[in-house]
């Protein structure tokens, strides 16, 4: 069976007037393709939002359930009691000196930072 040699059938098929696609067919089709891509992106975005909202609602619901079930309503907070400090003239001097050192350190660090900043800006100019 030599079907590929059926010249008459090939010629008849080729000679049948095959209408051409309209000139702008390919561009119209590509525009549709781009629209389909946009729709797909939009759908994915909406789906993502829905998913996040759903998960958030479930988590909030779970939190409310846990709060209502496992945490008692009559709970109270107790603030810790600060120790009482007895200030003697000697300890007053000690506290004053510590405060002075801390303040001095802070001032020196601030001064160092200011001088460095000035020096860097001058260097960059």
């Amino acid at each position, binding site marked *: 069976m030599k079907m590929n040699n059926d010249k008459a059938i090939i010629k008849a098929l080729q000679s049948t007037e095959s209408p*051409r696609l309209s000139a702008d067919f390919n561009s119209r089709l590509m525009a549709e393709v781009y629209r389909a891509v946009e729709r797909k992106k939009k759908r994915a975005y909406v789906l993502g939002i829905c998913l996040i909202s759903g998960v958030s609602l479930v988590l909030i619901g779970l939190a409310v359930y846990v709060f209502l079930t496992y945490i008692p309503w009559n709970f109270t907070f107790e603030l810790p009691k600060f120790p009482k400090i007895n200030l003697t003239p000697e300890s007053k001097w000690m506290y004053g000196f510590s405060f002075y050192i801390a303040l001095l350190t802070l001032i020196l660090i601030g001064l160092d930072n200011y001088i460095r900043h000035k020096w860097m800006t001058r260097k960059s100019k």
Partner: protein
Amino acid sequence: MVTHFPVFISSLKKCNQNRLPASYTIYMNNQVEINYIERILAGETNLYSYFVNSYSNSIYSLIVRIVQTNEDAEELTQDSFLKAFKKLDSFKGDCSFSTWLFRIAYNTAISATRKRKMEFPMVDEAMMESVPDEALETFFDQDENEIKLQKLEEAITKLNVEEKTLITLFYTEDKSVAELARVLDLTPENVKVKLYRVRKKLYVLMTKGNEDEQR
């Protein structure tokens, strides 16, 4: 580079037509198309125009033969390409892209014809069986007779959808039996039998036409 690549491939095909085996050219073409598909799936949508430019006319001529109206055929061609684009991630690469696309186009056209209820003339089985193989070969091998060609064209329009698809893809698109089997969801043996029977049917339709004219 993207815009010149198809031109390069077509020129490469022309250059290598006489030097390389056909299977190698088909393999190379498939690799190029698979690469394109991967890039389209990665977001380079504009590359789909390569497939649209390459196959839109072939797909359109097949659909026109099936549905027989130009406007519907154009719409169905667009539907086929859009369906192919949406299902692009399901293309496994186990056949050529054109075969896969023809299958989508065939199914789309078939769905459209089912809604319309098209009628095709029946041919007597006994008459078909009585046609000798030698007569077929000599009959279809000659293409000089214009009247015969005209009658053959008429006979082709009387074939059913599957038969039209078979001969269009086999004779004008040079699809192999295996590829036809994929497009029509048949076995290769079944395709061979159907092709053989289409030739007999065409012969009977033409000779029957002659007898009717003589009466």
